[in-house]
């Protein structure tokens, strides 16, 4: 009972409501995990500069259990380039295109991933941006003529990356903040409730996201639940983006007219002074 009282003091009413809701079914069907997002839609408006979402839920846990949360963005091709020194300057000499890689991949956990489970366990639960196995097409332009040129891509078959190449991709994607692993970022209470604060960066790629929560015990995922999250441009920024892409010629003409008009206005305004 003390747990209930402590919880009522510290948690938001919404959370309690959810806990009450699952308290019944949990008895009948153990190993369940349920979760919800404070907001399943992220609007990238003109004032967007990253945002915070709350993910909360309940699970039927035991002491020592862990939770891993995966926020995965839409699949996209990632172009990776390697620089080398040619004629005294650093130029791109090699291009890889990683096919259908997650554009965004943030992993949250109650602990270090390595103390929750091993590589095999993560692989079995499809955790990790490369867990589904990525491949790339590659081409070199290492002719050494100083400035590159020629075709950057061979038309050869896709090659799966070796561990070193995968580490390189991971490092690059971590540097721009799109792939992250955040250990000890999920907080649990009474082995029953959990919550995590998802901090979304300002460079988040728009699209359909999936949010998966996994309940781990002894290195094995007992249960899993997935919810969707929609990240999209909204308001003025969506309007400008759609205008630029759907009516690009008109957009260009409009941009020119706007520039001519404001240049004219500026000259007129400051001439009178």
């Amino acid at each position: 009972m003390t747990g209930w009282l402590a919880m009522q003091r510290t948690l938001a009413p919404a959370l309690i409501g959810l806990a009450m809701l699952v308290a019944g079914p949990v008895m009948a069907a153990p190993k369940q995990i349920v979760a919800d997002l404070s907001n399943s839609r992220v609007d990238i408006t003109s004032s967007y500069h990253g945002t915070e979402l709350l993910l909360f839920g309940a699970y039927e846990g035991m002491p020592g259990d862990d939770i891993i949360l995966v926020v995965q963005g839409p699949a996209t091709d990632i172009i990776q380039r390697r620089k080398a020194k040619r004629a005294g300057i650093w130029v791109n000499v090699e291009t890889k295109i990683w096919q259908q890689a997650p554009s965004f991949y943030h992993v949250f956990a109650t602990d270090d991933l390595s103390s929750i489970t091993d590589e095999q366990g993560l692989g079995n639960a499809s955790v990790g941006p490369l867990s589904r196995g990525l491949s790339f097409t590659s081409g070199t332009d290492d002719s050494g003529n100083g400035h590159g040129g020629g075709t950057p891509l061979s038309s050869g078959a896709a090659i799966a990356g070796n561990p070193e190449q995968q580490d390189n991709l991971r490092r690059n994607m971590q540097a721009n903040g799109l792939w992250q692993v955040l250990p000890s970022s999920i907080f649990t209470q009474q082995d029953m409730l959990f919550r995590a604060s998802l901090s979304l960066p300002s460079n988040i790629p728009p699209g359909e996201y999936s949010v998966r929560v996994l309940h781990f015990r002894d290195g094995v995922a007992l249960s899993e639940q997935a919810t969707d999250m929609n990240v999209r441009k909204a308001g003025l920024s969506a309007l400008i983006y759609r205008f630029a892409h759907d009516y690009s010629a008109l957009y260009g003409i409009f941009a020119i007219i706007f520039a001519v008009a404001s240049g004219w206005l500026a000259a007129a305004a400051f001439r009178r002074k």
Partner: protein
Amino acid sequence: MYIYLPIAEVSMHIGIIIGLGGGVGFLSGLFGVGGGFLMTPLLIFFGIPPAVAVSTEANQIVASSVSGVLAHMRRGNVDFKMGAILMAGGMIGSTLGVALFSFLRDIGQIDLVIQLSYVVFLGIIGALMLTESLRTIIRSRTPGAARGKLHQHNWLHGLPLKMRFRRSKLYISALLPLAIGAFVGVLAAIMGVGGGFIMVPAMIYLLGMPTSVVVGTSLFQIIFVTANVTLLQSIQTQTVDFLLAGLLLFGAVIGAQFGSRAGAVLRGEQLRGLLALLVLAVCVKIGYDLVVRPEDLLSVELVR
């Protein structure tokens, strides 16, 4: 207050954007240049993708050139006939430039070509301006120095299709301004500049135009060249960020007013000397970035 730029797809502090516009606007007002050669590298430095920086800057230069050319038109300092020929060349050149830009972007070499163009052209122009202004300053201190001829005649004046340009007091082949316009047009499209810093010396030294009409005529043709780049980039690459251009413009209009007032205090050769140092500083910074080993040799880009 941060603002999310819909085409660049990055969020930037509004103070930085307007401050950049104001700062570059001040310098452009001070020196009487467009300022594209400063703004485009600065935008890239602040994390705007190079393609968006170049296209958006073209859009902004349309506005600043319109604003600048009006004063020159009132004083009759625009040679419209010469401007039209240069513009025709500029249209061809900038169209080629935009196509070249797309091609270089596809093969992953656009950043390199932008950087190399900056190093080469800013280096040449900066060095020429610096020596010229130093020579003027020295000459002004030694009275009685001999003056050169107004302009020399050479093989360039033997080309066909001769035309008379009354306002510029010239009778030269139309092919020459056409070629200059085309060349500067290519550079304008690739470097995200108006090209005045190349056009003006070319008009004085290659065409032999009187200095009174070069700036106005250059601004006149830049309007059309940058408008062409804006339109073509909008259609082909959708990289013109209207919101970014508008905010930069807002800062630039105000900055330019203060700049031109400050410029009235300094003498012409002193201004040119300072501008030369600024041009060389940008050249050295970009050149340094090319030769110093990058922190990470690998880089990624998401295909949208």
